[in-house]
């Protein structure tokens, strides 16, 4: 798959050479990464889909205000993160299906869960027990393998605070898995 440079996408959009092509390339390049980033936070596909679409619409409609002080990649993640956190905040009182419940359903459809499945299930349970912002930090670092500097751009938090948060999150998860391992 051809990986297109962010600068090239921005040129197509902002210089007006072919904005529609630029939008398509932008969505195509980041849709999966952002979808999973969102989905790890909200668990329901429909919610993640709504947030993802809103994120891209917001990005495209405000792309003129994007300043190259940060990378397009971290800007996209920041908007997706804010959209997700706003959604979680607004639907705090609503009962939503959690990631571990999805996992249980999925495991139930297969014959027998493997040890790997059980540990991943425990990992997801542990992640869901983390406070929202700690969960966000853990996901960005663990799943998206983002550098601390990029995480600082996304979350507008200091690198030191992010390191400490990730460290605490890892320790909590490890403890949970050990305590709940049969």
């Amino acid at each position: 798959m051809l990986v297109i440079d962010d600068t090239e996408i921005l040129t197509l959009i902002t210089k007006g050479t072919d904005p529609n092509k630029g939008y398509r390339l932008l969505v195509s390049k980041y849709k999966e990464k952002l979808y999973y980033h969102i989905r790890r936070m909200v668990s329901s596909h429909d919610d993640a889909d709504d947030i993802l679409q809103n994120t891209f619409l917001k990005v495209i409609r405000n792309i003129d205000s994007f300043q190259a002080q940060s990378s397009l990649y971290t800007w996209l993640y920041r908007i997706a993160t804010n959209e997700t956190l706003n959604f979680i905040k607004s639907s705090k009182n609503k009962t939503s299906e959690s990631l571990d419940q999805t996992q249980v359903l999925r495991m139930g459809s297969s014959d027998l869960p493997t040890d790997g499945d059980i540990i991943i299930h425990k990992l997801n349970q542990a992640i869901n027990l983390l406070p929202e912002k700690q969960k966000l930090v853990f996901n960005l670092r663990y799943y998206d393998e983002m550098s601390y500097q990029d995480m600082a751009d996304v979350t507008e938090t200091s690198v030191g605070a992010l390191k400490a948060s990730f460290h605490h999150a890892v320790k909590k998860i490890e403890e949970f898995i050990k305590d709940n391992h049969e």
Partner: protein
Amino acid sequence: MSDDNISVQDELGQISPLLTGLSKDTQVEVPKDYFSTVEDQILSQLQLPKAKNIIEPAPEGYLENLEDEIIKKVADKGNGTKQSHNIFKLFIGAAVAACLGVFLISRFSVGDTQVNDTEVTYEAIDYFDAYPQDIEDINVNQLIDNGILAEEDISFVIEEDNLQMENIDPIFHSDAPF
């Protein structure tokens, strides 16, 4: 700081070897073909701004004449404002002049009245000093001589008295006992 660029695997190796060995598969279910259709779904929503172009074009010559129209309106408005300012100034001037006029008139007229009043008062004092305090002692002829009373005034009073006497009910004014 070199720690900032450390890979996640290396960092996890230092703080939690348990997590280092785990699969990173999120294992969430995503509807089939979702990622191939979501792109069109998003981009179809971006067609909305294009709808603005469907708006009927402006009447012929509208845009060409627009700047002249605006300049004319601005100029008219400016004149209107100037006129209203002038009227306002005129009104204020007239009000000030009227106040000043009233003040001056009242000032001078009050002064005259006071002088006249004083003179009248002095005259009155002179007159009354010249006559006795008891009204019964006043000599009518003296009053006529000094021009305070005219003979016609007295005759009128006499005539009036006579007239009144004629209208008096003779029974009730009779001294005769009932």
